[in-house]
């Protein structure tokens, strides 16, 4: 018997291909900008750059762990070894062709990383993780192609805006205005951290991508972009799951001829 090969997502349309791309851990996502680690830490606002990590339990190496087969089996991530606190970062993705949307973020995180907990809501996606690992992941997520300065927001609370019209500069609405448009540089600049506490200095996250470029990069199906119904395989896959769930409940394997 040959080993099962992961297929990630069906379909041949652009969003379907992009979904496969972000979920496949073998694909290295493009790095589009370089926001320094200190600035990422400032935007998250959990600790000051350079400050020690606070811990909630002694390092695992001290050997006070109970005898447990699962603990022996699972290699802890760096932050867990050191006993870091669990902290979070939360991204909001606009419906206007943001590079990724919350649901695919969950798929992507769980497919690519270990040791995180993620929660999906309609417009936002939270990642909870040990602090030092979270910081590395947050930097990757801000630097890579799944982040767009105008259409992705880093918002810990009052995330409202993902389904609002964009403003005159093409930025997603934010009631707390954590980021502003720099007219001269034509860049998006963070002036507040993710819970809207003013930052000591402005942090630039670069230029937003053009709408034409975003339409090629997005994982979002939209009636005015690529309609999900135009991708037959994706539609069939959705209908199949729906049918299995409706007819089979928690026993979809018992439904025949679907």
């Amino acid at each position, binding site marked *: 018997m040959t080993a099962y090969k992961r297929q990630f997502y069906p379909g041949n349309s652009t969003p379907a291909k992009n979904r496969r791309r972000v979920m496949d851990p073998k694909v290295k996502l493009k790095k589009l900008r370089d926001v320094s680690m200190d600035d990422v830490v400032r935007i998250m606002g959990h600790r000051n750059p350079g400050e020690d990590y606070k811990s909630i339990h002694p390092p695992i190496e001290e050997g006070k762990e109970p005898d447990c087969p699962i603990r022996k089996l699972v290699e802890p991530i760096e932050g867990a070894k050191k006993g870091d606190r669990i902290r979070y970062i939360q991204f909001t993705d606009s419906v206007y062709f943001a590079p990724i949307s919350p649901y695919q973020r969950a798929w992507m995180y769980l497919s690519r990383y270990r040791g995180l907990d993620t929660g999906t809501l309609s417009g936002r996606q939270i990642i909870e993780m040990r602090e030092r690992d979270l910081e590395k992941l947050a930097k990757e997520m801000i630097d890579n192609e799944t982040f767009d300065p105008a259409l992705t927001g880093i918002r810990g609370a009052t995330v409202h805006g993902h389904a609002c*019209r964009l403003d005159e500069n093409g930025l997603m*609405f934010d009631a707390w205005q954590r980021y502003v448009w720099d007219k001269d540089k034509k860049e998006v600049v963070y002036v507040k951290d993710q819970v809207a506490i003013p930052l000591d200095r402005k942090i630039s996250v670069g230029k937003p991508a053009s709408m034409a470029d975003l339409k090629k990069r997005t994982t979002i199906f939209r009636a005015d972009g690529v309609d999900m119904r135009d991708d037959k395989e994706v539609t069939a896959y959705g209908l199949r799951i729906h049918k299995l769930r409706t007819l089979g409940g928690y026993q979809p394997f018992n439904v025949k001829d679907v």
Partner: protein
Amino acid sequence: MLSEPTVEYAGIPLPEVEIFSNALLSAETTEKVLNALDPIEHIRQINMTGESISKNLNSGPGKGIPNNHSERKVIKVGGKDVELRFQVGAFYIELNVENQEMLDEAVEKIRAACDANMPRGFSLTVGRYSKYRKTLRDYK
């Protein structure tokens, strides 16, 4: 549900023009649009809607500190101060007109005013979109 009508009932449901912007407007653009609408005759009232912007942070660790949102400010319309609490996305303009010609004329003037001041575009429709007289709920 909307509370009481903002102005007294005119006796008949007057027509309303809905200007629905393609982009959320900055305070500066809102000011320009309102000042362009100000001299147009037969406008009985203008209501605006949009995305609410709080004065202070209302949750999180920074609860209570000022929000400092650049679009939440006092603008000048026809010499009067108007406090914006929203990033405006739509205008509802009630017209005190008596016949179709008066309506058409006013609508064309409104369209011209918006064309000149809303570069990201808008859609304009005529109808009745808001409450114009008290209903049972308003008598408590």
